[in-house]
């Protein structure tokens, strides 16, 4: 198992955002986490990445490659982030630094974990890998000069540039329109091959495109889990049934 989460709870003051959540992700498995906003799915992913605000109280266990992440020193955590595991976020316009050229931001991700500085050639290769046809121009652009799809591709390039074992995708296609969403899912499907991945979304249809297995979260709990087709065919929980009904039109 690449990632084992055991009885993970996250508390903000008196609010319990995640309540004793347990799941595991295999070496090259993709696990979808589905839930409405406020269900605790994003908090779970940030807890794994160690990027929750300092007001959060985390208990339970998160084992990544056998290494305990809960309570890990920041210095050690930093070496893992962007390197052994990485993250892709929802809104690439705001997730990229608006004042810095995209290529430089990708080069930075390389340089942070590699004594050799991020070479221009590597950056362009990575951009090509995520389906960008004019990597030179894109690398020299500021985020606002790119389309939503190009920005998210750049974001993906940044996430896989150090060949991580685990990629956490937090609503990676939500901010994109339908056509672009399909293309980005295709790119993700490609780059997540031979890696473990957590794929967080509120959209059952999107998760079905990339994940064979899914867990459903509601109000901080896991309410259902299993192979995605089984969950869709026979939802065991009320909430899942409503999700399926809602997504029915698109499936």
């Amino acid at each position, binding site marked *: 198992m690449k990632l084992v989460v055991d009885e993970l709870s996250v508390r903000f003051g008196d609010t319990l955002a995640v309540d004793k959540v347990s799941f595991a992700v295999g070496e090259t498995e993709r696990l979808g986490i589905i839930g409405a906003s406020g269900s605790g799915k994003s908090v779970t992913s940030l807890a794994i*990445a160690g*990027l929750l605000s*300092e*007001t959060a109280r985390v208990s339970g266990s998160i084992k990544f490659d056998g290494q305990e992440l809960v309570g890990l020193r*920041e*210095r050690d955590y*930093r*070496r893992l*982030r*962007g*390197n052994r595991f*990485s*993250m892709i*976020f929802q*809104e690439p316009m*705001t*997730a*990229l*630094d*608006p*004042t*810095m050229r995209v290529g430089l931001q990708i080069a*930075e*991700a390389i340089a*942070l*974990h590699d004594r050799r500085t991020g070479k221009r050639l590597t950056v362009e290769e990575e951009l090509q890998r995520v389906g960008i046809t004019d990597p030179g121009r894109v690398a020299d652009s*500021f985020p*606002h*000069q790119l389309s939503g799809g190009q920005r998210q591709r750049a*974001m993906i390039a*940044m996430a896989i540039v150090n060949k991580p074992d685990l990629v956490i995708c937090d609503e990676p296609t939500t901010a994109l329109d339908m056509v672009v969403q399909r293309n980005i899912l295709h790119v993700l499907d490609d780059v997540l091959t031979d890696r473990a991945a957590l794929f967080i979304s509120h959209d059952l249809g999107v998760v079905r495109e990339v994940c064979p297995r899914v867990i459903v979260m509601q109000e901080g709990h896991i309410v259902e889990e299993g192979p995605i087709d089984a969950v869709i065919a026979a939802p065991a929980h009320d909430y899942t049934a409503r999700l399926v009904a809602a997504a029915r039109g698109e499936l």
Partner: protein
Amino acid sequence: MKRLLIRLAWFAGSLLLASLLIFAATNWLPGDIASVLLGTNATPEAVAAKRVELGLDRPFLVRYLEWLGGVVSGDFGTSMINGRSVTATIAPRLEVSLWLVLFGTLGSLLLALPVGTFAAVRRRHLDGFVVSALSQIGLAVPAFWAGIWLVVLFAVRLQWLPAGGYVPYWESPAQWALHLILPVTALSIVQASVISRYVRTAVIDVLHTDYFRTARAIGWGKVGALWRHGLRNISISLLTVVGLQVATLLVGAIIIEQVFALPGLGSRLLLAVTQRDLVVVQGIVLVLVWAVLLINFLVDVAYQMLDPRLKREAT
């Protein structure tokens, strides 16, 4: 490029308008210079004759254009009190004021950036709160008070630094630096408390941005992410605040000039006002106002150069 030209035209226009307003204000000020020069016992005829001698009887617009023409070619006229060239009076004093403003601004930034950042990152901890509170106390401290205490401590008690006065750079760079340390420190401390408050708010905003989270997610520590990505984004809006501060400093340094007996622009302006030396007053006020306008113009231009989103619209 076109946008820059438009800005430049606006800038030139505002310089012109400012000069007209200043000239008009000083000329319509109550208290006729001719009667001041001649004393209270002068006859109306003598005053009238003096006015002709000073050229004050000619139409306003003629005198304004004459003055402006002189200013543009570097001649600010001659003092009505001592007959000396205003340009020669102002130039060395402008130099003192510029050093104060330049180093005062740099010093306040050097203080405010780390202090404000620390207060933001540690805002939920006691040390962050204490730093934040201390910098707020700094807000309430008048610059002259800070200056007096610095003199008492470093000049009188410890005798490390001179208590006041000024030595031009070309006379002795070492002495020049020594004489500037205390006044610049006094200015920096007070200015820094304003800026650090701003930096704290801006850094807290950055801590909540997506790009900061991305920077953390690729492996930056908090400080590294702030340094590399936060500062760039803050600098754009910080520029506006610093621009305003520079303008305040330019005029506000007058008190510090008094405390440290520095021959700056502000103290010369005070003297000219009490003497009703209108030509000198006009000259100094014009230099100050133009300097503020110039700073605003530069901030505007720099703003567009720093923010790539604005740059695109500009080209």
